[in-house]
């Protein structure tokens, strides 16, 4: 195997592994991130109300 082929294979495998990890992460973040936004707004509203008082 030439150096070019070896490097091309290395990048191909790396890309496949990390992209798979990433899209697994996307599936986790989409629903749970939305839940976190709702929680954040609730907490900030409570803080804001406390400051007003």
């Amino acid at each position, binding site marked *: 195997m030439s150096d*070019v082929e070896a490097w*091309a294979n290395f*990048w191909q495998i790396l890309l496949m592994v*990390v992209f798979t990890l990433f899209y697994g992460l996307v599936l986790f*973040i989409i629903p*749970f*991130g939305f839940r976190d*936004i709702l929680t*954040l707004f609730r907490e900030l509203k409570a803080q804001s109300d406390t400051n007003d008082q």
Partner: protein
Amino acid sequence: MFETNFSDIDYVIVAVYLTGVIAIGFFANRFISSVSTYVVGGRGAGLALNTASYIGTAFGMNEIMYASIDGFRMGFSYLIVALFAFMIPMFLGITGVVVRRLRELELTTLPEFFEHRYDKRVRVTAGIICVIAGTLNMGLFPKLGAIFITYTLGFADQNGDTELTVNLIMTGLIVLVLLYTIMGGMVSVIVTDYAQFVVLSIGVGVALFYCLSHPDIGWANMVDTWGQARGEAAFNPFHPDSYGWIFVVWMLCMGIFGSVTWAPEATRSLTSRDAETTQRTFLLGSAGSFVRLASPALIAIAAFTYFSNDSLLSSHFFPDGIAGEVQNAPHALPLILGKILPSGLIGILVAGFLSAFLSTHDSYILTWASIFVRDVVNPLRTQSLQDKQQIRIIRITVLCIGLFLLIWGVWYQLPDSVWTYLAVTGTVYISGAGIAVYGGIYWKRASSTGAFAALCGGLLAISALFIESLQVYFPQLTEAKLAFSNFVICACLFVGFSLLFPDRQDGVEEHE
């Protein structure tokens, strides 16, 4: 030659999406009741949201542009930078090195650490250098965004004067960014980062699929074309005709020190709910850090293959043949997206990138402005500013930075490698500050004078911006050699001055 598939339906998609994002900015404004809410989102972001924000902050129009420029010029070798962007946050996330400690200190800005560990002089110096380096660093962002819009929407063909079109679009983008930043602060950044994370991660994945499955492209074609054009240098970053090992080591240093000191990304270690969330954010965000650099580079690598088979575009990009010097690299990614993606999908992607443009600028400008006020203005005053005064001065600073971006963007010409420009301006702050942060946490004998000397030493990296003048006298000198040696110089200054001028004993005990 520059016509694209962008159509009326895409304009509608962009308009609807942007209106939605700006509405979120207005909505988030209701929650701004203190500086901590404005600058670090009230430290209330949970794991999934903080990870989306960590990835989203650095996944925007500018990032895809500079990664694509280097991908188009250097081929697969650029992926080494993405590999470091993957490995280093993963290491920090697993071990908690530095990031955990920073979150536990409950800081609002990173330079606050320097007063906590060293003294006020170091904090103010770090604040000044951070703002200078950061503002210079983002100086090219609006222009990159405007080039993206111009070529994706097909404006380049309709107007004779493309430079004027780019400058007009850039001005419009900066005005939009300023309105958005002043309105919402960090809460709106975090929320829109989430929206752009969803749109861009799916959109870029689909775009990549379209490119790689195109009959004229495909993985095998890409490898063949690049192999014929550049040989091993297109794949091996250590090859002398590619980046070379000094550049690779410099990138490694940038990753190790930049991950914890480069404020816009490092701030995510401050916005999370607790130290555990910070660690997990870095761990989960590592794959995203890779994808945000690798996917645009890969699309640009595909564009090289696609354009090499098109006689008209080939003359635009490769006037000396594909083995010669590449020209007009910034046009490659927007053009291929505009030509290959179907109408509708381009609109979604452009809308996502425009939103990303807003939130990246928002995050960057807000970070530099808040550091200027909290770490330079406030410590120099005898009486601390009230929260409302701080927010007002931050907003005025935001306007000043916007004005600088407009002037710099119009007058400064894009260098061949925007990535190198960004890395050099980043090194100005990261080399000194990174060593002072790591040293401050893990070396008991680190002193304020040592940290001050290291920070000042970082300023030497500015010389790399004038590399062409220096090469007249030193032909072997490169940006990479200068910038890497700057890390070594800062480390020597830090250790040397810490040993020669230790802090008083009571100070050391207090730090322990």
